[in-house]
């Protein structure tokens, strides 16, 4: 009984804090939930004269183009595998960089490094694509004209060779995202009680042991949350990265085409909102299922860290 009373009083005391949530909730309601009413467009053949409500129902016909292509396997594989690789890289390198930043004694240098790392994230993807182009161009590119000849290597037609692209895309992705990820991990690392490290040092723990026995276990909740949040976007790809960085070059589509670029290339010319809505709906449903599965697995392994 006393426990229940306690709960009620906590609720009362926190009413003001709950009120603070209202603007954010309203925003999410208007921006993320209101448009959901439009999902039915995915099942319609839109005729503006009839209006979206009276347009003809066509069942799942708008979804067909996503699967009725020999490339369906390639785009699914690219989308998911790239995302998994990015996720692993981002987590491993993000934590490594965060630990390095946390250990920097020189505060000025630490702050400079943080800013320098986060800067690429602020650059528009269009500009990034031209930075990449400055390296990879055949006519004037730095790699073909300066760097490769310096090592006595033959020029490569970068936008036509499939081989290097998984690496190029991963490098560009890391360059863009490492800053933000590292800072999220850094914020949880600085929250770790310093006394833990001091006593570990007294017991003669090496730096490596301190990282694996103290830092990683302490930031585990952050890692799990970050991973869980990312699973929902496993079937989304960064359109700018996969479309602009390879300059939409056709010869390398086998390794750069993802769900989003495929939909873009397919619907660019037809302007069909029914098919576009279908593509978006399918993506959301897959993302939703993935989050549920990932959460279920997490709950089995470690109940405290599951989202719900």
């Amino acid at each position, binding site marked *: 009984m006393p426990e229940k009373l306690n709960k009620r009083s906590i609720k009362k005391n926190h009413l003001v804090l709950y009120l603070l949530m209202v603007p954010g909730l309203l925003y999410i309601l208007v921006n993320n939930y209101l448009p959901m009413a439009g999902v039915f467009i995915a099942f319609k053949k839109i*005729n503006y004269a009839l209006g979206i409500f009276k347009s003809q129902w066509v069942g799942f016909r708008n979804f067909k183009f996503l699967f009725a*292509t020999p490339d369906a396997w390639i785009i699914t594989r690219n989308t998911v595998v790239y995302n998994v690789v990015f996720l692993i890289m981002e987590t491993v390198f993000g934590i490594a960089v965060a630990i390095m930043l946390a250990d920097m004694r020189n505060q000025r240098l630490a702050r400079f490094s943080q800013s320098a790392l986060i800067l690429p994230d602020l650059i528009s993807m269009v500009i990034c694509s031209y930075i990449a182009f400055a390296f990879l161009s055949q006519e004037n590119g730095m790699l073909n004209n300066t760097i490769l000849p310096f090592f006595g290597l033959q020029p490569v037609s970068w936008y036509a060779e499939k081989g290097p692209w998984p690496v190029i895309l991963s490098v560009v992705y890391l360059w863009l995202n490492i800053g933000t990820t590292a800072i999220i991990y850094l914020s949880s690392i600085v929250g770790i009680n310093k006394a833990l490290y001091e006593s570990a040092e007294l017991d003669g723990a090496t730096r490596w042991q301190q990282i694996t026995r103290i830092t990683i276990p302490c930031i585990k909740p952050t890692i799990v949350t970050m991973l869980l949040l990312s699973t929902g976007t496993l079937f989304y790809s960064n359109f700018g990265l996969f479309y602009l960085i390879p300059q939409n070059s056709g010869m390398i589509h086998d390794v750069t*085409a993802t769900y989003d670029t495929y939909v873009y*290339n397919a619907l660019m010319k037809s*302007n069909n909102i029914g*098919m576009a809505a279908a593509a978006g709906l399918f993506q959301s449903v897959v993302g939703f299922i993935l989050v549920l599965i990932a959460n279920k697995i997490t709950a089995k392994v470690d109940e405290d860290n599951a989202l719900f």
Partner: protein
Amino acid sequence: MKNFNHFKHIFAIVLMLAMLLALPACGTSPASDSNGPVKIKFEMFSFGETPDEAIVEEALNNITRDKIGVEVDIEFYNLANYEEQIGLKMAGNEAMDLVAILGDTGAMARQGELMPIDDLLEKFGKDIMDVCGDLLYYATIDGKNYGVPFMANKKYVATLICRKDILDECGIDPKSMTTLDGVGKAYEIVHQKYPEMTMLAPDGDGLIFGYYGIDNEHVKHVSYLSGDAYYLVSVNDDPTVINFYESESYKRELDTMRAWYEAGYILKDAATTSEVGSLSYYDGSLFSYISNQNCYGDVVEPIVHAGLSNITFPSYAIPLSADVVTSADTLGVGISSNSKNPEAAMKWLNLLFTDSDMATTLYYGVKDHHWQMRDDGLIEYCDGIEAGNSGWEAAFNWCIGNSGASYVFNSVSNDPDHNKKQLALNNSAEISITYGFEFDPDPVETQIAAVSNVVEKYAYALESGSVDVDTVLPQFIAEMKAAGVDDVVAEAQSQLDTYMASK
């Protein structure tokens, strides 16, 4: 899990709420006032600056108010998302009257955005019918007409724009360059003299010869049948649908491009570049580019780069393909299906086709403010105003109305009748027998989406000459077939047969 049930509950409530909120958005807007001049709305795309919109509209209204009792209110949209914006406004049932068409009348009409205008043309559009003649029916759907095409010289051909000064210096006759062979020989000579200069680069869309065939020697002319599936063509007035990418002439063009690429004539980054070739041409680093241009008659004439006063060299425009008027849709203007004043809109459009003051005002701005009349019947910009920053950089002059109705700028020609003569060239042009056919992509939308991706994958690399034709072209065709291009061709053929039978 209990929490999750809670979540479902909230979700359902939110969804219901959202639907309720969305419903009132489909109300109707009030009908226009019946007293005084009728106000019509004109939806238009633009990529120039139009700060002088208010005074231009006022000048237009001063002309039209007395003559036909109509006033116009122009609304501009960014060219890049024009079609989406119009779709959204239609979905919101916002009233509009005239709607500019960005080259896809069929799609707009089938999505119910436009109304059929045959009756309106009969009643209020006599002048439009006179000026357009047979060209009026450029996009007929089930025998109905949904748009008024832009009238100008409609003989668009693949044109090689190249440096006259360099040709003269090398002693090359431009008349020898109307075939790909001739162009290749010229490149050989120029390339030797100017090894630093790129001979050929894509202009804009990344495809060197775009969607227009340039195989003049073997094919008399190619007619394009669809905007969505632009590879559907018929050749030489034979109503047989062909996949252009599978044709012999495409292979021949690719072989030429490959040879040029290997000889170092073509920009190495041509397959991926998003640079606009004409810009490198203007700055002098490019010798030539191919562009879809009006045909300037049979002879090869030096051309004027209108509005580009900083260019010091003269150019030749050399037609590479035959000058046949084909349809595959075009720029134009239609009347919105939700228009409350379709009659006023048609009257306004009809006047635009014949009234020189009105047309010139819409195209170039206010008389004696933006432009002025000269004694010789030509017009020129007023002092302090020039092309590029006139305050009225709308795109009307190349996509709406009748260019023959407008006065002629002194920078374009010395002949006050230049525009009318250009328009008259249509009378002598051969009109493709498939003109007016509108392909309905709906039954094969899935295949078209898949094929579009295959085209994106191969066409740029092949047409820039940067890959081996003999190995890559068969792959290209095989993948197109796997994506269902044959279904698209068959569907187009059956639609074309129906169209030809009904003609």
